[in-house]
C-alpha cells in the first residue's frame, strides 16, 4: 500500500487550504455606500387614469425623499377642460385624498387639466379617451404549446377591429381570481412579440388590415387536491380588452420595466457575472412636474368555459 510522507501530507493540506482560500476570496461583498440621499426640492406630481364611463379622479402629490411618508397636495386649484372647453374647477376631497371631478370620462373626447399650486410652477397635462374596441369570435385552444417542463398549456383566440391608417394602442388582460389561477405565458403572437416583451400591451404597428385575430397563451395553474396531488385549474375565462391612449401605452410599458428592475435587484446581487443594471425612467406627460394623465376604454368579452381537462 502506498503511504504518504509527512511532507506530502503537509503539502496536500496546503493545497486544500489554498483552494478553500481562493474560493472564499471570490465571494462578493455588499457594502453600504450611503443612506444620506441628496435632498431635492419637492416637485408636484399629477396622476389620473381616465376610464371611459367613470368619474375623473385626479391625484396630486409632491415627490418626496424615498424615506418620507407620502405628501399629498391639498391646496391645488385644478381646472378641467373637455375638448378644449373649460368644464369645472375641482376641489380637494379629504376623505378620498384626491380631487374628484363631477365630469364622467367619455370615449372620443380630449381632456386637459391645469393645476395651480401656490409657490410652484403651473402644471398641465392632456390626453384622450379612445373608443372601446369591438372584440369577437372568442375561441379556447386546448394545446397551444409546451412549457419548460414539457407540459401543455392552453390559449384563447379572438378577433378585434382596428384602423391600420392610424396608430392605436391596446392592452389585453385575463383577470385572475386568485394566485392559483391562470397567468399569461410565452405568447408567440407576432403583434405581441413585436413589442419585445411578454406583456400583452401592443400597438397596431404591424397590422395592415381592419381586424386582427390574436392568440394569447397562458398557464392555467394548479391547486392542491388535499393530499391527492396537484390538479390543473380549469377556470372560466373573461377577457378584458382595453383601448388605451398613446400616453397610457408609453407609461404602462415603463411601469412594467420598472417593476422588472425592482424584482431583479436580488438576482443581480447574487450573480457575479451580472453588470450594472440600467435604471428605467418612468414616462410622464405632465409639463411642469411628474405624473401621468392618460385615458382608456374597457371592453369586457363573453365568458369562455373551457372543456373539462
Amino acid at each position, binding site marked *: 500500500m502506498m503511504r504518504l510522507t509527512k511532507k506530502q501530507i503537509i503539502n496536500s493540506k496546503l493545497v486544500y487550504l489554498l483552494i478553500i*482560500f*481562493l474560493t472564499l*476570496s*471570490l465571494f*462578493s*461583498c*455588499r457594502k*453600504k*455606500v*450611503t*443612506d444620506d*440621499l*441628496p435632498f*431635492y426640492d419637492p416637485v408636484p*406630481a399629477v*396622476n389620473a*387614469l381616465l376610464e371611459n364611463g367613470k368619474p375623473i379622479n385626479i*391625484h396630486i402629490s409632491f*415627490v*418626496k*425623499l*424615498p*424615506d418620507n411618508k407620502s405628501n399629498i397636495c391639498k391646496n391645488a386649484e385644478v381646472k378641467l377642460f373637455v375638448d378644449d372647453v373649460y368644464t369645472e374647477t375641482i376641489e380637494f376631497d379629504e376623505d378620498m385624498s384626491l380631487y374628484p371631478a363631477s365630469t364622467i370620462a367619455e370615449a372620443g373626447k380630449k381632456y386637459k387639466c391645469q393645476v395651480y399650486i401656490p409657490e410652484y410652477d403651473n402644471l398641465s397635462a392632456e390626453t384622450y379617451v379612445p373608443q372601446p374596441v369591438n372584440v369577437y369570435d372568442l375561441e379556447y385552444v386546448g394545446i397551444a*404549446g*409546451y412549457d419548460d*417542463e*414539457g407540459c401543455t398549456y392552453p390559449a384563447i383566440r379572438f378577433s378585434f377591429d382596428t384602423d391600420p391608417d392610424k396608430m392605436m394602442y391596446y392592452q389585453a*388582460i*385575463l*383577470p*385572475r381570481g386568485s394566485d392559483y389561477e391562470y*397567468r399569461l405565458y410565452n405568447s*408567440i403572437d407576432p403583434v405581441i*412579440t413585436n413589442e*419585445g*416583451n411578454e*406583456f400583452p400591451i401592443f400597438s397596431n*404597428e404591424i397590422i395592415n388590415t381592419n381586424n386582427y385575430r390574436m392568440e394569447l397563451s397562458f398557464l392555467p395553474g394548479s391547486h392542491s387536491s388535499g393530499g391527492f396531488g396537484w390538479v390543473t385549474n380549469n377556470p372560466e375565462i373573461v377577457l378584458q380588452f*382595453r383601448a388605451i391612449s398613446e400616453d397610457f401605452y408609453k407609461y*404602462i*410599458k*415603463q*411601469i412594467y420595466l*420598472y*417593476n422588472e428592475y425592482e424584482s*431583479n*435587484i436580488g438576482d*443581480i446581487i447574487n*450573480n457575479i*457575472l*451580472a*453588470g*450594472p443594471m*440600467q*435604471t*428605467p*425612467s*418612468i414616462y410622464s406627460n405632465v409639463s411642469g412636474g*411628474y405624473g*401621468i394623465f392618460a385615458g382608456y376604454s374597457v371592453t369586457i368579452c363573453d365568458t369562455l368555459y373551457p372543456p373539462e381537462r
Partner: protein
Amino acid sequence: MIRTTHIILITILFLSLSTFQVQAQQSQQFYISGFVNDAATGERLIGANVSIESINKGVATDNLGYFVLQVEPPVNIIVSYLGYKNEKISITNNEKKLFHVALSPLQTDLGEVEIVARPEILTQQFNVSTLSSKEIESIPVLGGKPDVIKVAQLLPGIEPMNEATSTMIVRGGNPGENNYLFDNVPVIHVSHLGGFISVFNPDMINSIDIYKGGFPAKYGDKLSSIVNITQREGDKSHYKGSFSAGITDVSFSVEGPGGLKNSSFIITGRKSFFDLYYLGVSSIAKLVEAQDYSFIYGFHDINAKYSWQMNEKNSFHFNIYQGDDYMKIWMNEKDKQSNDRIKLNMGNTWGNLVTSGSWNHVVSPKLFVSNTLSYSQYRLKNKQNFYSEMAYDTLDYLVTGKSDLRDILLQSNWKYSVLKNWNMEFGASASFIISNPNKYYNYYSDIATIADRVFALNSSAYLDNNFRLFNRIDASLGVRIANYYSEGYNNFSVEPRANINVKVAKNHVLNASYMRVTQNAHLLFTAGSILNNEIWVPAGKDIESSYSDQASIGWRGEFLDGMLSAEVDVYYKKLYNLATYKEGYSNIIGDGNWRNKIMSGGKGTSKGIEFLMKKNTGALTGFVSYTFSKTTRQYDLLNNGLEYPFEYDRPHSLSIDVGYQFNKKWSVNALWVFRSGMPYTPVIAEQSLPYIDIETGEIYYKDALIFGERNSERMSPYHRLDLAAKYSKIGKRGRKVEWTFSIYNAYCQQNAFYYYYDNINAYKYKHWQEIPEGDNRLALYKLTYFPVVPSVSYKVYFDKTTRQPNTHVKKKLVIKDGELRRVEKE
C-alpha cells in the same frame, strides 16, 4: 481659393522635383528585400531593424518578418533585434536581391554584449500600443496566468469593461468596435468565462499591436481599434513543448518540424480547470440528495498552425482556432420500481471557429504579395431537451435557440516600392457574411420556428502611400473604399487616412493623424448580463452602418540613448449611427421582429489626452500610463434625447508598473492601478403613481423611485495593487521550470463592481413579511468582488536543445566534529 490652388501647385511641383532628383540617383541604386528569422527556431522576427551601416538609416520588418530597402553598393547592412546577435551583410553588386537573414539568440551568460541598433524614431508608429511577450508574461493579472488583453488595458486609452474582464473599451468606443485579427483574420468573440479570460493563448502569440487611431488604410471594419495579433510559427529545427497550470486552466504547446523541408507546426491548447470542481460538487450534492442534476461550466480553446517555406520566394501558412465556453445541466433518473424515467439535457454553448490559409510571395525585390482565404464563425446556441417516460405518458420536448455570424473572407495585400522614398501598400478584400442573429426551434410548434438569415457582401480596396521627405517627414496618405450590401441596403464609404510624422529633433517626433472608419455589424449586449448574451446584428435599412471620425496629434521622445521613452497623444473622436437595445430589451433570440427592439442613430464623442513613459532597458523596467478623457453618448430615445456620460466613461486612468530582475532566477513586478469610478444613475426622489396590475388590470397607487439624469453620478474611484514574483530554474531533469506567484488586489481594496439601491432593512424581514413604514428606508449599496486573490501558476518547457545537465548534487546530513553538516553523497 486662389491661395489653396497655389499651395497644391507648389506641392505637386515640389514632389515632381523630388521625383526627378530621386530618379537621377537611381542609376546606381537598387532594392533588396528579405525576411528576418530566428536562427534557432526559424520564427520570424517582427520589428527587427534593417539599416545601412554608414548612414544609420533603415527600416523595420513587418508582421511577416519582411523588409524592403533601397541600397547603393558597396554598402554594409546591419540587421539587429533585441536579444539577438547583430548580423552584417556586405553588398558589393546587384546580383543578389533577396535575403533570408537568420539571427542567433544572445547567450547572455557567456558574457556577450547586447548592442542593438534601435529603429529610427521617425518610422515608429503613433496611436499604436505594442506589447512584447516579455511584458505580457511579467505583469500580474487575476488568475496568475498571462493575459494579453488585461495587460493591454493598462496602456493609455484602453480600459476594461468591468473589473477583471478581458473586454476592451478603446478611446471611448463600444466593446464591439474592436477588430481582433489573428494573423490578419478576424476573430469575433474574444473572451472566455464571461469575459474574465481572453481567448488569445499567450503560448501562441509572437507579437500584438493595438491601433487606437490613425489606422493604416489596410485596416477597417471596426470603429475603435485594430488588435493585430501575430501568431508564432513552430520551431523548424526540432520538437519541443510546454505544459502549464494555473488556478483557472491548464495549457500545453507542442511544436516542431512539419515533415516537409523548411516547414513547421505548432499546436497550443487550454482547458478550464473548474469543470471538474463543478462536477465534483454536483456529484456530492447528488449523493447527499441535495440535488438530482449535474452541472458543469467550462471552456477550451485550441490553436494550430502549419507553416511551409517552399522556397525563397513562396511560403504557405494554415491556421485553425476553435474555442468554446459551455454551461450544461443534465439529469438522468430512473425509478427501479415503476420504470419511470426522466432525462433532462440543457445547455448553452458559445464560441469561435477560425480557419485560414495564406500564401506569401516575393514577386520581385520591389513587390510582395500576401493572399489569405479565411472562414470565421461565432455562434451562441442554447438547447433544452426534456424526456419523460411514464406508465401513462411519454414526452420528448426539444427547444433550441441560436444566434450566429459567419464570415468567408478573401484578401490580397500588396507592397510595392515605387521610389527610394515612396512605398505603396494596396490591396482588396471581399467578405461574404451570413448573419443569423435569431433562430428559434420548438419541436412541437410549427409557428415558433423563426429562420431569419441575413446575407451581406462586404468588399473593400485600399491604397496607402508612404513618403519620406527631407529625411524629416514620414507621411502616410491613403484611402480605403468599402461597399456593403445586404438585402437591398447598400452602404458605400470612402475612408481617407492620413498619418504624418515630423522629426523635430534627433530623438523627438511630432505626429498628426486623421481617419474615418465604417462598421457594418453592431454588437448588442446588455450591461446586466455579459455571460453569454452577445448578439451581432448586420446593418440594414432600419439599422444603418456606423462610422467614426478621429483626429489626433502627438509627440514622442527618447532619452538617455533610448533607455527612457515618453509619448503624449491628444485625440478627438466622433461616432455616428451607433445601435443598442431599446430600453427594456435584453435579448432578441426567438423574436422574429428583432429589428424593432434596436435603436440606432446614436452618437458618441470621446476626447482625451494620453501620456506614457517607459523605462525600456536595465534590470529595473516599467512604465507610467495616464489618460484623461471624456466620453458621451446620445440617443433620441434615451435620457430625453440629451447627451449623457458613456456607461464606461472614466475620466482619469493611471497605471504604474515596476519590474525588477534580481538575477536569472528571480524577478518581481508591482502594478498599481487607479481609475475614476464609473457613472451610475442616481435616485433623486420617490413618487406615488398609479400602478396597473398586469394580471388583474387593477389600478392602485404605489411608490416608485424617480431616477435622475442618466449616468449623472459617479462611483467611488477604483484602485488596487498587484504583486508578482517569478522564479525560473532548471529542474531535476534539466528542463526549464517557471513558477509565478501573484497577489491581485494586495491591500484588499473593496472596489465597487456596481452601485444599486435597496431597502436598508431588506434582510431584517423575511420575504413574505411586509416592511413597516418606519423601516422602509432606502440606501445606496455597492457590490464588490475580488478582494485579495493570490494565485500560482506553473510552467515547464520540454526542449532537448536547451536542456541542461543536472547540476543538483545529492547531499546528506552527517554529524562531523560534533556538528550537523551537509556533505555530498558518495
